[in-house]
């Protein structure tokens, strides 16, 4: 049978509980627009009436606990989709720069340089002895080699930029991983506290996990002690308990570009997604493919033009020499790497241009005609220079388009998942307003209960005293 004085205890517990409710509501309202904040709610546990007569109904709050409305499943999904978003964003940022090189608004692109070069041979066929036309051929050939070099340089610049991004991203991954390891310790120390601090620490850690996901493909799991273990999809450990394990960055002896290593093992090829993978893919696959196209085209031009040039006679009646400086494949051979950067005109004397057919006089134009015709069929490429270049342009556009499309898709996915998360974990001000009233009224009622008890005690005292 409860006593009047124990009733006061019950009232005090109720007052404390409603106050906690108000505090938590205030915390929710204050964080209504904090990204990644998880809504908290106080739940009350009625007293079980231990030590009392169980037949008597006892009103009272035994304990008030703070619950956070966390949906770990959706949060995990968000982190996974952020990886794709990070990857596509990195690719798109790089390819945007690349496509601008090929848009050729100014008409100064490789296409017009190619046309100008071959047309200069065609012009020369009209009057092969004309020194101005001969000079023109050398000028246009120089323009073509410069255009190859310019495009090659710019592409390499984007490639180098990606290399720097690889370095910076790895550093950032290391810094975040060590922060997550620290958070693991913090979370362990606030675990079970009933103030909402544990939830706040979990929110912070989730933000770090999201940020890390944008950078590299990770999977993570939380153990019973509340600490997360983070590793890349292919199993490179990043965080375990209070420890983080750094990615190392070292220039590759083959390419000179940075390799991503862990424990001295090259794990570059195991990085599958995130900004790091996006930058690696552009650096190691996309741009090298473009450079290879340029190299193949330049090497074909050098070979085919030189071959045709050698079958004609120059203005002095001598057999044509090399028009372009011959390209020597770097060992072990089989690759034209560097041809587009090194292509240069071997001739400086316009009279050495072999416009004439074999043994033809200064007015003979048959070789100039054949040189001009190479444009429509480069034997080494098996197609025209225009066709080959158009394919490259198409490839660049398609790559940029697919990065753009992929980025939009990932952004939409992340947005939807975040909305889904917010519908469960986010703060609704309407709901909080209702809760304030609820707690306020309950507080008022409990206070009223104390007043009633006070009156009762007064009455008893009066009876006893009277």
């Amino acid at each position, binding site marked *: 049978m409860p006593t009047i004085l124990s009733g006061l205890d019950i009232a005090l517990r109720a007052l404390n509980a409603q106050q906690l409710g108000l505090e938590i509501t205030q915390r929710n309202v204050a964080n209504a627009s904090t990204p990644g904040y998880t809504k908290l709610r106080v739940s009350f546990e009625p007293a079980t009436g231990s030590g009392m007569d169980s037949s008597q109904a006892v009103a009272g709050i035994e304990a008030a606990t703070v619950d956070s409305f966390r949906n770990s499943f959706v949060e995990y999904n968000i982190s996974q989709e952020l990886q794709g978003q990070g990857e596509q964003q990195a690719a798109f940022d790089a390819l945007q720069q690349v496509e601008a090189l090929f848009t050729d608004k100014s008409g100064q692109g490789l296409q017009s340089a190619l046309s100008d070069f071959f047309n200069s041979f065609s012009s020369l*066929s*009209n009057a092969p002895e*004309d020194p101005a036309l001969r000079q023109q051929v050398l000028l246009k050939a120089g323009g073509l080699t410069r255009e190859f070099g310019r495009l090659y340089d710019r592409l390499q610049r984007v490639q180098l930029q990606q290399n720097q991004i690889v370095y910076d991203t790895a550093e950032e991954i290391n810094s975040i991983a060590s922060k997550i390891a620290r958070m693991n310790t913090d979370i362990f120390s606030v675990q079970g506290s009933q103030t909402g601090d544990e939830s706040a620490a979990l929110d912070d850690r989730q933000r770090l996990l999201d940020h890390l996901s944008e950078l590299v493909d990770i999977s993570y799991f939380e153990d019973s002690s509340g600490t997360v273990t983070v590793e890349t999809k292919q199993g490179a450990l990043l965080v375990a308990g209070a420890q983080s394990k750094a990615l190392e960055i070292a220039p590759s002896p083959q390419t000179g570009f940075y390799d991503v290593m862990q424990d001295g093992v090259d794990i570059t090829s195991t990085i599958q997604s995130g900004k790091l993978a996006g930058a690696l893919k552009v650096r190691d696959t996309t741009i090298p493919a473009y450079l290879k196209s340029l190299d193949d085209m330049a090497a074909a031009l050098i070979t085919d033009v030189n071959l045709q040039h050698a079958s004609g006679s120059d203005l002095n009646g001598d057999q044509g020499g090399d028009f372009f400086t011959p390209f020597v494949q770097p060992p072990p051979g089989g690759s034209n790497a560097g041809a587009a950067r090194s292509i240069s005109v071997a001739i400086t004397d316009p009279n050495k241009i072999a416009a004439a057919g074999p043994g033809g006089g*200064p*007015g003979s134009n048959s070789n100039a005609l054949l040189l001009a015709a190479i444009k429509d069929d480069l034997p080494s490429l098996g197609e025209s220079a225009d066709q080959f270049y158009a394919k490259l342009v198409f490839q660049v556009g398609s790559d940029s*388009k697919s990065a753009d499309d992929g980025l939009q898709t990932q952004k939409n996915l992340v*947005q939807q998942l975040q909305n889904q998360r917010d519908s469960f974990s986010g703060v609704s001000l309407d709901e909080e*307003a209702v809760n304030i009233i609820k707690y306020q009224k309950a507080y008022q009622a409990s206070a009223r209960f104390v007043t009633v008890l006070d009156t009762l005690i007064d009455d008893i005292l009066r009876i006893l005293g009277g």
Partner: protein
Amino acid sequence: MRVTPTATCRDLLASLDTLNEKLDTVSQQISTGKRMVHLRDSPAAGAESVHLAGEAAELDQYKTNADSGTFYLQVADSVLNSVQNLVTSIQTKGSAATSGTASASDCASLAEEVRSLRDQVLSLANSEVRGRYIFAGSQITSAPFVIEGDDVTYIGDDEINKISVDDGLQVQQNIPGSSVFSPIFDAIESMLSAMDAGDHAGIGDAVAQMSSSLGGLNLARGQVGAELGKLENVSLELDTEAVNLRAQQSRVEDANAAEAATRLSQLQTALKTTLAVGQSILQQHNLFDFLG
């Protein structure tokens, strides 16, 4: 679904981002006049644009070649015409010298007239245009016909130059002078030596030789006429092709101004509406506004 203000703001921002991006594209289309702002907008159009630019440059070059070819062939045509007239005059002089009434002094003075006409033919055969001797084959840097006494020798070669004036179409740009002029000069030489010798029968033979020596000249005139005809046709075709090509380039590359303007105003309306909606969302009341 429970909707929170954060989610609403997130959706609103995403819509605004998309709209602004589209607006940027359309306004760039309008300001540049080009349909393709980024290559990624249409990679296929980008590739086609390369082909079209290549074709356009080629057409320009064909036109240049055709103009150059026309120039040289017209010069050759007018030279060959003049030669034809001179040869007729020489034949007239020859015929006058064959008549029995022509005295030795008549013959001598006719011979002088023939020599003067021959020199004119020689000068025409050594025509030099824009620094090139047009009847010299490929030896265009020196005069192809040299004269010693009455003997004219060809020192050019027989190389024929062709130039490209359209896809798969070449025209002959020059006429090597040997087959045209050498028989004529030979006939003139025979005529002069007969005249100097007062050999009336010989002069008669030379006049006959003269007539048969015109085969090369006539062939060359026919050839030049045919090539000029081809060039005239091809020039017209090139003009038509250029017009068609420009139309196609415009279809592929140019923005449709009316369409772009319509799109711009649509997007502006959408943006305005979204902003208005956004404003009301951001100022949306919640329960707190009604408590107090």
